């Protein structure tokens, strides 16, 4: 389990990245925290000719609030997100999600942008990005563009990133007053990929939820926004019957894909259980 030989370049500017992409094409890969790519290379599932190390790029660093948007540099490591008061205030969902990611050593190295660009459907970050209606800031040699999370995740490890693109930052609308963020996942061991996970936002008042977004992960080829379930909770104070309707409505939102530990039926059941628990938590302001 040793990677095949590769070249390595630590770049100082985005222009250098674009130049290297122009030279190497899809033989070049960006390395951020390396928590997915390095094991993949060791297993020889990935064998890039060139690794572009973006850890020194200023443009990809930092967490800042610009008016009603929180801007998080793509190279921000999980550990930085976890300890940022700005993130805790402006994106409580993200703040709560970080401790669920793998283990401390991985959180010390892994990056926010790396997880989004990798688009593992069982990961927490893509689901949070979708729940928070994040916008990806993408740069290439031609310029910069913005892609909404809903359009960014396109399938199993598939995103809107094109060859030559660099994910530079993520913009997240700052949580308005009363906006809650809750994440729960069902794991057999702490730090594992969830059997089923649910990242949710919503505003609770008087037993009602306004504008809830329920994003499930670990159920398909990408994070899934459960709109039918949200609709079932739209009218009036939420009763146990409403929750049961929302749980039943999940069948219209998605049919889970199974994995080696869980059949689709198990995942569908667990998704219903999680929805019930997360709605209760949102209503309890927890």
């Amino acid at each position: 389990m040793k990677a095949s030989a590769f070249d390595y370049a630590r770049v100082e500017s985005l222009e250098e990245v674009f130049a290297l992409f122009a030279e190497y094409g899809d033989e070049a890969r960006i390395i951020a925290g390396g928590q997915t790519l390095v094991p993949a290379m060791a297993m020889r599932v990935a064998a890039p000719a060139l690794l572009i190390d973006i850890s020194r790029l200023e443009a990809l660093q930092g967490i800042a609030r610009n008016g009603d948007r929180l801007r998080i540099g793509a190279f921000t490591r999980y550990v930085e997100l976890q300890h940022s008061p700005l993130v805790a205030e402006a994106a409580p969902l993200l703040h709560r999600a970080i401790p669920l990611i793998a283990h401390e050593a991985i959180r010390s190295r892994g990056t926010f942008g790396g997880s989004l660009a990798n688009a593992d459907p069982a990961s927490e970050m893509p689901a949070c990005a979708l729940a928070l209606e994040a916008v990806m800031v993408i740069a290439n040699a031609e310029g910069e563009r913005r892609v909404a999370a809903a359009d960014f995740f396109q399938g199993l490890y598939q995103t809107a990133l094109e060859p030559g693109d660099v994910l530079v930052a993520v913009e997240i609308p700052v949580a308005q007053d009363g906006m809650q963020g809750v994440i729960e996942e069902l794991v057999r061991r702490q730090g594992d990929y969830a059997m089923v996970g649910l990242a949710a936002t919503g505003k609770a008042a008087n037993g009602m939820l306004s504008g809830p977004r329920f994003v499930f992960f670990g159920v398909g080829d990408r994070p899934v926004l459960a709109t039918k379930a949200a609709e079932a909770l739209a009218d009036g104070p939420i009763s146990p019957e409403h929750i049961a309707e929302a749980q039943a409505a999940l069948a219209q939102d998605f049919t889970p894909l199974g994995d080696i530990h869980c059949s689709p039926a198990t995942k569908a059941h667990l998704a219903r259980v999680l929805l019930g628990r997360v709605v209760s938590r949102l209503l309890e302001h927890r």
Partner: protein
Amino acid sequence: MSAEGKAIRPAATGYIGQPVPRPNARRLLEGRGRYTDDMVLNRMLHVAFVRSPYAHARILAIDTEAARAVPGVAAVVTGRDIAEICQPWVGVLGHFPGLKSAPQYPLAVERSCWQGEPVVAIAAETRAIAEDACEKVLVEWEELPAVVDMQTALAPETPVIHEELGDNLAFGLELKAGSPEDAFAKTAVVVEETFSFGRHTGVTLEPRSLIADFEPGERRLTVHHATQTPYQMQDVYARHFGLDEEKVRVVAPDVGGSFGLKLHVYGEEMATCALSILLGRPVKFVADRLESFLTDIHARDHQVRARMAVSAEGEILAMDVEDVTGIGPYSVYPRTSAVEGNQAIRLMGGPYRMPNYHGVLKVVFQNKTPTCQYRAVGHPIACGVTEGLVDMAARRLNLDPLEIRRRNVVTAEMYPHTSPTGYFFERLSHEECIAKIEAMMNYSSLREEQARLREQGIYRGIGFATFIEITNPGPAFYGVGGARVSSQDGCVMKLEPSGRVRCSVSVTEQGQGTETVMAQIAATHLGVKLDSVTVLTGDTQATPYGGATWASRGAGIGGMTVLRAAQALRGKLLELAGIILQRGPETLDLREGVIVEADTGMARMDLAELGRIAYFRPDTLPPDFHPDLTVARHYVPQGLPFAFTNGIQASHLELDPETGLVRLLDHWVVEDCGTILNPLLVDEQVRGGVVQGLGAALFEECLYNEAGQMINGSLADYLLPMASEMPDIHVDHVSTPTQFTPLGAKGVGEAGTAGAAAAVMNAVNDALAPFQVSLAQMPFTPERILRALGKIPSS
């Protein structure tokens, strides 16, 4: 003579029973361990393997030309190349009549019989280059039908893996005692269940690794090897490569865990030695984690149909079991893959007075990774089946699970006792263990709490498992069957000129503290301070011949060799001191490293002075007196073919009926390993063993698809028990020393693993009892629990 003048009292028990820490623990924690992979030899090559992608396939052609052309590649060899210098092996032994297996080669020759079997070996300047070259080897395969399901392995329509063997039955055994048919016919209560155990593996922190270093001039082979059994491997290497035994040296440096899996013969190890012999250069192999999952021995792949006859009063009258176990395509060499099943069906019902028994064992071939001995061989199977049935009977009769055990265990006045399967128990302590665990876990209030919480919709379960444990195996284990696996051990002990003591012993250290225990015994029986004893293990060139460490024999057997050597050296030291001091040796004693007057304790001289005179001024001694300050002693296990320990475990857990997730709350163990030599190390053995058993109960399982492909060969997908999921493990002891040795120690390595999974199973079923469902398939995954609860459709 600095020691002169003060009085030293005799020590009562010396260091026996003292919680002395391991001197090597600090070194290992500081990262200064020296494992095989830390060693770099001049001109050393690294080997990587091309492996079979199929569970069963014929090799039509192998094209190695492109691989040979990769710069940095020293050799590319196939099964046929290696077969020319290495004799194949067959994993059978005479004391398992009818056991059959096919000749096995280091690399597959005509066919591969499991996914991951090595086919081509490539030695290169680096492992990465060797892996580059592996990608360039072209093997033309003809895929053959694979035998995957052990339940149909013997069906007439199932292909036979080794045609020359006639069928896929490797070994069969039927045991009968008393009149089980009568018991089942006459009793009112019969409980019946089919128990399934997940195939799993050992997962040592340090993977299998070795460096083979062949020197062609004198035809010497030195193997630095992460092994439990240096002498067994010396014998294997010498015989299979046609080398003189004394020219083969096996050295085990620091070894990072073994659990039984580092004493089997593996193709990779043999191929690595073969490459070194062919090239005359050192060659290193370190298994990566995927290779470990595909080629380290697996274990516990059993399905057992079992029933138990119980009287209306809860007396266990009989058991009837049929155990089918799949062992992969070969019986593993040299200890065979019949041992696990053999122990499983002989240990059934072991703690109980049950008079009637019928057991059938079918050991079948299949196209999966070979299985063999892993910690607590066969015990978790027997314990799971027996304890599962006992709880079913208790539930049927509305008896408390502790009460039914109390009514059935072999009681104090019955010893010595022979089980219906022929196991001989010198003296066990089931009743005391049950009483102790009941108090320790505060059983009655735990039950009250459980009832209270159930009303709130919280489902907790309490489960017990009584167990017996086989330890201290003698020649009956392997030697009588023709295996060159030694059952005796040896110790060489010498006084250094400094007055310190060096002890070389044939039992080995894999992180469990063997060397510490040996030092405690040496210091105690010599009469010296613990820190003046250095222990050396794991080198066939520097230690006496012996069986080494497996089956919980290190303390009981290895300890006795040290005890005998210490007593002998002590006699020599006192004799010499008597001559120097011109007194009878019987008037002297050795205490804390000082020669004292036996009656007064008055110090006369220390051992450094004794060493100085013996080694540098022997001219001051009488003519013709030759101080023998090096002694050697061996020890052969006496009295019993193997020893038994016993104990009981309890699990307390909470089950979420909505998600099927189980949270372990507490685990208790009371066990009886005889004399406790070092309570720290004994408790570590118990806790570590329990964790492996908890892994079996909730997490660990080698998953295969219909084509015989292992689909979870990584630490992300094969779930090991991790610290965050582990409960507090409370350990206490009863001590019934064996009377067959002055040491009294019986061994403790298997105890935790033997019973932990069964205790969890019973606790899971206790938690599920209000739903009128139960489970008998390990591990207890959320999906299996949800299916039992009817939350999701059964598959």
